[in-house]
């Protein structure tokens, strides 16, 4: 069989489908922010940004650009009606205090017990960058990760144990990759959706920890985005 791995936009589309009406969601830098483009119609999903915004709207068009209105990724943004602005300490009070339903974050590695490593890949000569990831990983009710299933050299990112420094232990509930949707459960990784044309054995071979497959495991949709 042959398969075509999901694009970054397709992973974002898939993750966005799980955002329910009324949820308060924080999207991390990189792939996660793309989810904003794929929120299912008719659902009100409020996007939070760590610098101090609840109700982030679309990225500003050149006409809308206001350099004093940015998100945590320094993008110039707009606000939706009903949006509010507050200080960074209030923003992290919101995050740490358990008021964010879901955070979608990028990841380097996720372990079968839910450990997350996404902040320090030991780049020589480069300083560390934590940003809001540790607070989000600890504070959000659900931590969902979006990442390529494998590194560029083919190594697995879903592991028994993370190699990189942790962002937070035992926090991840679901991982969206270019090959599968995998839940983190008390029994380890459980595959919920697997790419069409990819065998369970192939997926296991690309994964650094034992996979179980949900009884209702289905084919991962490949949307035209």
């Amino acid at each position: 069989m042959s398969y075509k791995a999901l694009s970054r936009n397709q992973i974002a589309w898939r993750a966005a489908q799980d955002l329910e009406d009324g949820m308060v969601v924080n999207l991390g830098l990189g792939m996660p922010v793309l989810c904003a483009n794929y929120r299912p119609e008719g659902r009100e999903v409020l996007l939070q940004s760590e610098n101090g915004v609840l109700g982030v709207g679309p990225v500003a068009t050149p006409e809308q650009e206001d350099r004093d209105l940015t998100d945590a990724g320094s993008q110039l943004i707009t606000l939706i009606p009903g949006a509010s602005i507050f200080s960074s300490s209030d923003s992290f009070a919101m995050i740490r205090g358990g008021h964010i339903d879901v955070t979608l974050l990028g990841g380097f590695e996720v372990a079968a017990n839910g450990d997350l490593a996404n902040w320090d890949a030991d780049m020589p000569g480069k300083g560390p960058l934590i940003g809001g990831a540790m607070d989000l990983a600890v504070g959000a009710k659900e931590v969902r990760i979006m990442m390529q299933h494998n590194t560029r050299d083919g190594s697995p990112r879903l592991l028994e144990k993370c190699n990189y420094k942790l962002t937070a232990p035992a926090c991840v509930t679901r991982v969206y990759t270019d090959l599968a949707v995998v839940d983190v459960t008390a029994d380890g990784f459980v595959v919920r959706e697997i790419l069409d044309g990819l065998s369970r054995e192939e997926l296991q071979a690309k994964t650094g920890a034992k996979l179980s497959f949900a009884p209702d495991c289905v084919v991962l949709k490949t949307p035209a985005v």
Partner: protein
Amino acid sequence: MIDKRVASIDEALAGLGDGMTIMFGGFGGAGVPINLMRALPGTPANNLTIISNSVRFLEDYAHALFVEKRVKHAVASAARSRGAASGISELQLADGTMTLDIAPQGSFAERIRAGGAGIPAFYTPTGVGTPVVEGKEHREFNGRMCVLETALTADFTLMRADKADRYGNLYFRGTQGNFGRDMAAAAKCTVVEVREIVDGLLPQPEIHVPGVFVKRIIQLPDARDA
């Protein structure tokens, strides 16, 4: 009469000296005190501890401070330059001429708030199980392991707002506020560059930072590149 207006950058930065701690407001380009940062290398400020969400902003606008190794210690949630090459502060980290207290951003923000609020220390679950809180005191509350974080205070805070009045009351546009209110409260001498010092006093609904936290205000244009 309360009048916190100053006319020159020299006056705004008077008193900056050796061994001081300086906080810098700003996030994502909003609220960054670029004019004041650019003037820093011309002051006697030396052997500095800087407290800034990202080290990069200061490096961008006060490059000479790092060239001359006048920053000895940084507290930040980000200390990474753009691109693949090392920035000068990263070289300082590598050669040990600058040390770094890298903090999760929420702990960073809360430590500053605590500093201005007379709270010397607090417990937080953030960072537990990671190397960034190694060596810090751990303690369990309600079944959850937490770590003790201590307050941050400073000699000076430099920040930018949109409007101010002679009382030092501040109004922020958009997301300019970010760390500003808390940093203003956490420093002995808070200096704010603003687009406009209004005639009269700001109306109550527009006051985001009460003037009691501010020592000096100076009207300076937006210094961001066009």
